[in-house]
């Protein structure tokens, strides 16, 4: 049963990673990268690695999205 969930999560991660790479809009790409981090951490829990999952949850899905948006904001402010 858990292997089916792992396959499902892997497919979702693949779709989101494709969105993150190929989408024209940078904001959408950043959100997709955050969502990749979210499902990757669920997958880490399924593989019995809660430490890695906690790191991915707090840094990969939370802080990196925030820092990317701050950098985008910096670029927008200098372009105006």
């Amino acid at each position, binding site marked *: 049963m858990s292997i089916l969930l792992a396959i499902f999560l892997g497919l979702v991660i693949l779709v989101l990673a494709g969105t993150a790479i190929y989408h024209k809009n940078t904001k959408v790409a950043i959100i997709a990268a955050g969502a990749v981090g979210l499902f990757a951490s669920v997958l880490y829990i399924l593989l019995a690695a809660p*430490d890695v999952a906690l*790191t991915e949850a*707090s840094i990969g899905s939370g802080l990196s999205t925030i820092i990317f948006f701050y950098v985008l904001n910096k670029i927008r402010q200098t372009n105006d």
Partner: protein
Amino acid sequence: MIKKGILLLILVGFFAVISSLIINFTGNEALNPMAKHYAENGPSEVGAANLVTAVVVTYRGLDTLGEITILFIAAAIIGFFLKAHNADADRPSRLRKTSEILETASTLLVPTIFMLGAYIFINGHLTPGGGFQGGAVMASGVMMIILARPTSKFNHKLLSVLESVSGVAFVILGVLGVVLASGFLNNSFLPLGELGSILSAGAIPIIYVSIGIKVGSELTGILDSLKEHQNEI
């Protein structure tokens, strides 16, 4: 067309090379010798219920020191470049004001986030998590303050003092391991205590608190230097 054909050929070649790995894959049934040593002797040598903590802080403690140094250098470089750029940005702010709901929620949520961060790095030797994760959660709490009140200022002196003191404390604890016990970052110079209780695992909780404070103040420094320095509307 020819380009795509060549690309396809390269991909097929790659698959032919890798396919034997995929077909003959068998999962790791037994632990390799080093992991076996950690799993068997870890609880008695280190006294930490969470074995990952034992590996990260004591057996491979030098790697953790290197990671913290890398994070420190990254924070310093970001601060250096953005300071130079921010010096002349004194124009009036055109910020849209925060909604009252967010401001009110931040008064409740910021202490809760800090408490969760402290829980994560104090309980690092019992539950998943540790210094890095706790520090990241603490930085998220600071993020919440910045989001709710964009004009708030931080005390940079205090941040740098916290960062230096916790970094020096980490190294001093490591050297104390050399002097009082058998090696760098050996945690057994304090009593190991009972496996699974909060006052156990020797010096690991103290080391993790210093790592957590250091990572939290470094990430806070990064976020604060990325923030636009706005004036009061």
